[in-house]
């Protein structure tokens, strides 16, 4: 796979690991948060942890739009899908996300709700065309990456004059969440671990560009390196962060220059800003309410807004109090510190956001990294 395999090269990795080890000051602790689940996945999938010195520690951020979707929004979607007239179209990742009381879209489907998995927003349009007598609702989730496809779909629905098609919008934004991690009032209760730098989003940045992180780097005095999702991308970014820390810089650097520039995808940004506007606040599982972090459809597109058409009311479900996601997402705790980890809470029956998708911190550790907790000898 061109532009992927080259960035998975073991030989280069071995040298890079040595370079990092050579440059990381043994007296110092380097705590870097990768915001994105894509990076978390790469770390666990390729076993990156085994290649970093002990004093370079990765903190897994909240960067998976599936994980952060609160149980209440799932409950709202289930309630909608249970209407006999409604067909709910969802991305496959959502099927197992827990709502309240152990429910999920998968279980709602088993109990009779008409829920269809789609690969692309284009499939949802086709389903609406094929079912003129039904109300087809697309359950839109995702960060800045996934929002433009939703925007294109709404344009298409408009062009096709589809009257039985709406969107349940749950799109969220990454910069407000990154900011929240550093300054939310919750930190007083949870405590905080110092974060020494951020590995910035890969595909989000293809759309929004690197500019939005500049304010962030400056305001909080944190280095940010935008990195691709291949393991060598990650390692290079870590090296770049180590160097910034060593040199006491806090700049935005772009490791992923083959796909990201400063301005992002102007056409995509324009589509999004035409159709969506900011919500005052939006709930993130594990983080709570985050101001100006969610999108909704603008007034002229209200006919495509499922929350308007079906008069949906916000449902709020408290997170399980034993779940340590809030602390894990902020780097204060690790999955194994949670009493529920691997007992009540597993990928089959996730309790908190970090266990929901394979990119959550707890799920990644359970699925790929757990052996390290009991490590007798190193795999080599």
């Amino acid at each position: 796979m061109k532009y992927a395999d080259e960035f998975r090269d073991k030989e280069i990795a071995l040298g890079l690991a040595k370079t990092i080890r050579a440059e990381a000051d043994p007296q110092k602790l380097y705590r870097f948060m990768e915001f994105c689940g894509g990076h978390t996945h790469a770390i666990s999938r390729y076993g990156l942890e085994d290649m970093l010195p002990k004093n370079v520690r990765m903190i897994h951020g909240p960067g998976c739009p599936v994980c952060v979707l609160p149980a209440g929004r799932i409950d709202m979607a289930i309630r909608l899908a249970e209407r006999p007239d409604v067909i709910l179209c969802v991305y496959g990742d959502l099927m197992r996300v827990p709502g309240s009381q152990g429910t999920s879209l998968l279980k709602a489907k088993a109990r009779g709700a008409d829920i269809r998995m789609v690969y692309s927003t284009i499939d949802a349009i086709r389903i609406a065309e094929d079912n003129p007598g039904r109300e087809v609702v697309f359950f839109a989730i995702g960060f800045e990456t996934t929002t433009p496809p939703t925007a294109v779909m709404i344009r298409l629905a408009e062009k096709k004059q589809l009257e039985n098609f709406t969107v349940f919008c749950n799109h969220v934004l990454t910069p407000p969440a990154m900011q929240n991690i550093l300054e939310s009032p919750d930190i007083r209760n949870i405590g905080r671990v110092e974060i020494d730098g951020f590995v910035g989003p890969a595909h989000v940045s293809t759309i929004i560009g690197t500019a939005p992180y500049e304010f962030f780097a400056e305001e909080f005095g944190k280095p940010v390196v935008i990195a691709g999702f291949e393991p060598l991308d990650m390692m290079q970014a870590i090296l770049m962060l180590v160097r910034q820390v060593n040199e006491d810089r806090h700049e935005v650097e772009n490791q992923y220059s083959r796909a990201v520039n400063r301005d992002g995808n102007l056409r995509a940004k324009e589509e999004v800003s035409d159709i969506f506007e900011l919500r005052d606040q939006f709930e993130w599982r594990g983080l709570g309410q985050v101001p100006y972090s969610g999108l909704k459809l603008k007034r002229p597109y209200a006919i495509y807004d499922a929350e308007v058409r079906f008069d949906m009311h916000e449902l709020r479900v408290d997170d399980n109090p034993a779940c340590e996601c809030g602390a894990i997402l902020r780097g204060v705790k690790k999955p194994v510190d949670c009493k529920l980890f691997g007992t009540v809470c597993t990928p089959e029956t996730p309790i908190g956001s970090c266990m929901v998708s394979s990119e959550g911190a707890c799920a990644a550790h359970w699925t790929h990294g757990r052996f390290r907790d009991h490590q007798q000898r190193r795999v080599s």
Partner: protein
Amino acid sequence: MKAYQRKLDIRNGCVDLSHGSGGRAMAQLISGLFHEAFGNEWLARGNDQSAFDVGAGRMVMTTDGYVVSPLFFPGGNIGSLAVHGTVNDIAMAGARPLYLSASFIIEEGFRFADLKMIAESMGEAARTADVHIVTGDTKVVERGKADGLFISTAGVGVVPHGLDLSAENARVGDRVLISGTLGDHGVAIMSKRQNLAFETEIVSDSAALNDLVAKMVEAGGRGIRLMRDPTRGGLAATLNEIAQQSDLGFHLREEAIPLKPGVAAACELLGLDPLHVANEGKLVAIVAPENAAPVLAAMRAHPLGRDAADIGEAVADDHHFVQMATSFGGGRIVDWPSGEQLPRIC
């Protein structure tokens, strides 16, 4: 038998409820379509069961239900699959598969032409695997109460003297051998699913492994601890199961695991782990270290084991982890798949 009124209109006709109701229409469907495709002396006797002679010894029995969608896929169809899958479960015990039964559950409206093609594939698969479909059953259900066609096959076979392959037999130090590339069947199927539709050259690996197994047993004898075909849940599920049942763990080397580039690409596209994807013509063998080389050589000498590889070893592990040294140089767990394999966006 006296001629039944009109012949089945194979080209344009379809199954309706009368074909499952025990009357002449059913008898006609069975004799005109299934017996023709499976043709053997046992079915010809027209009993509700079939009899055969066996020598004293150890027999194995297995069953599987086939609900694959779509019914026709690159490299096979539900009929050939229903023979291969059950033959393979027999073969995994080191046994020689002999006789199969086939239970058909058909949705009304199913086209005779498709049914005939499927039955013929079953007949051909059975002949190739040298087994006989000696007894069967046909039920027809109303539209909307099935998904076209389900087939459940059961099979029996005989185990060579002294062979006892079972999931609890793995020992620390045993080698893990795999007979070829992983994920071909699952990717071939997914490529034809309506919402995923992608094009690929990959075809299902669906095949009967009994001959390969016979050669392996010849080469490895009792050094073969156990074999299993990594079907649903893929290699990951199979090795996790064995780890639990044999109370040990595994260490795999990702680099050693054979994978077609198209399968790898499709899995990246869908966000799936190829180790979770189903195979229908592959086997995993856990083999004593001293027998691994001859068994591997025997596998590679067989057309269905050309790409066979030694991918790791059994290790002591109270946690029953299946660990893997990634091709990138790190380590990770290969966990059970969790739930249905759904394409991911994240």
